């Protein structure tokens, strides 16, 4: 059943984004891991996105210890609000790797139209995707992460 799910899973496109240190990172290579990588599309001006990432950051250590998962927060902020990313993530004390999709190339390639939008990936494929955030829905996300963790 699990293989069935993976068999029909979409590939992550080969798009390279920069992290906050200016290093180029290919998102396809990054997601080609046997561990779960969650790609979280967000923006500094998106309140539900911040709420979701805040909520996950409170349980992030436990999630990582139990499943070896990693969350990569992909900022879609354009040049207007991009400068706010670094102080915001530090001010919030988030530990996520941040990638910059400032002209929305990856967001467009994955046909994402509303934020927040999360992709749960494994071996370079999307095994689950979801949009919008309501308080407590991070628990359901964790159940999905556990389901796909070997």
């Amino acid at each position, binding site marked *: 059943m699990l293989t069935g799910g993976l*068999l029909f899973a979409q590939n992550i496109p080969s798009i390279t984004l920069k992290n906050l240190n200016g290093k180029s990172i290919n998102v396809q290579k990054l997601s080609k891991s046997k561990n779960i990588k969650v790609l979280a599309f967000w923006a500094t001006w998106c309140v539900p996105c911040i709420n979701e990432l805040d909520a996950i950051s409170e349980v992030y250590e436990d999630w990582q210890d139990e499943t070896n998962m990693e969350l990569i927060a992909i900022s879609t902020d354009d040049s207007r609000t991009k*400068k706010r990313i670094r102080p915001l993530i530090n001010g919030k004390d988030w530990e996520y790797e941040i990638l910059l999709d400032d002209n929305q190339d990856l967001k467009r390639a994955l046909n994402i*139209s509303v934020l927040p939008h999360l992709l749960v990936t494994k071996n370079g494929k999307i095994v689950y995707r*979801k949009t919008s955030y309501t308080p407590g829905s991070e628990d359901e996300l964790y159940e999905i992460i556990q389901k796909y963790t070997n």
Partner: protein
Amino acid sequence: MRKIIISLNFVFFGLILNAQLLDNLSIGLESNTVWYNNDSETGDFFDTANNDSDKHIRSNSYLKIDYNFLESFTASVQIESYEPFALLNYSKSYEGTNLGTYSLNYRNSKLNITAGHFYSQFGSGLVLRNWEDRQLGINNALQGGKIVYDPVSFISLTALYGKQRVGFTTSEGEIFGFNSELDAASIFDFKNTSLEIGLSYVGRKEETTFLEPSFNELTNSLSGRVDYYQNNFYSNAEYVIKSDDAIKQGGQLSNRLVKPGNAFLFNTGYSKRGFGIDATFRRLENMNFFSERNAAGNVFNESSINYIPGLTKQHDYLLTNIFVYQAQSTVNLDTSQSGEIGGQIDLFYKIKKETFLGGKYGTKIAFNFSYWAGLDGDYTQDNPDAGILPNYEVGLLGFGKKYFSDFSIEIRKKWTPKWRSIFYFVNQSYNKKVVEGSGAMINSNIGVIESTHRLGNGKSIRLEVQMLNSDSTKHDWTGGTIEYNINSRFSVYANDIYNKGSDTNTEKTHFFNLGGSYTNGATRLGINYGRQRAGLLCVGGVCRFVAEATGLTANLTMSF
């Protein structure tokens, strides 16, 4: 038996093949439908763009399909439909159902080639940005070709040519662009340091109907940038010049007012765990740049080549978005305007857990201040009879008339695992005449309190109370929101804002909205009924005016 095995094999490989085909396919569907009603309080439905009062039900729909094949190729199409007419406040150029964008892309480790439509951005976008925002009705993709070549890991070169998308057609003007990015830090193998240098050129060639034009058909813009980062400190600067070009005055392109433009952007900041500070300064002078000269000043932001967002905090609440600043880069001699100068400062701080102010869970504070003014200088009106040419002369760092200021503080507090609050305060000064074309300076104070309670099993309730008091008798608002999340899939909400002031457009009217949404994975359906306030709709720092409207809205988004 063998036959069965062969056919089973066939089915099995067919499935794999099929799966691989599907694995490389990405589809996005978005549909926004509105049923506009006649409103006994605010008037009957009327669409000024299409001069229509009959077509009450309209739908804007977008279907985008991306397909990856042979490892390195991606084909992409976007079909758009605006039926029977586009939603209110969209440009008339979006009409009917048609192919919006299409492209074929080839990519390997050194080359990235696109033919067809593409979206490109050089630096911060001050010389070039192609983007799409469906809510704003912006899609200024270039149709042509683009080549990105990375000869070595630390150098990236881009060359592009195209005509800009305007509705379902393209601009008259042609765009040429070159960009180079150099990652200097990786040459010297610096640790914890990044130094990037960028140089860009964008040219726009458009024929003119002037018999003796006092400007060239080709307008050039150049951008130089430096981006530096070391440990917790970062800094970047960009300088842009734009060559002489005719400026539109009084709705007409003038062969007598021909001036160059320039922009300077500087940003610096410092951040470490639990603390961040960021400061930006920007000066713009005559920086409008369109693929057609006559498109300058169009209300739909069509044909814009560069991206000039308002650098202010984007607020999240209904009453904090009554007065929204829009960047001023236009030359208008009547109002002594030629650009803007100003900046903003952001500060983020987390008060540690188990301290007096931090409490059990810590307290998060965000502070923002922004100030924008016109360019100080001498403005001369056109006077052909006296032999005087229109002109302006502005100083390098002179602050002129105040356009906008905004001070805000946000405090996020978690009280218990199930209960958290946000306190938000804004003090604003808004020069209505400059931003909207008429009116006076309005000073206002806005307060918001938001609380979220988790009720268990995915249920939660969120409440917002908002107040806006101003020194103008026209604006005195109150508002509120209640949202109930039944589970992670179903959610309902209601909100209302009401103006006790005497503003003719909004006085004694409830701008209420009721709605709900259903989310399942990456599919979301939202239904809303309510009355929309006339004003600026802003997304990503770019705004456009929207008219008052009442109706039932359904938004559907799906991604596969």
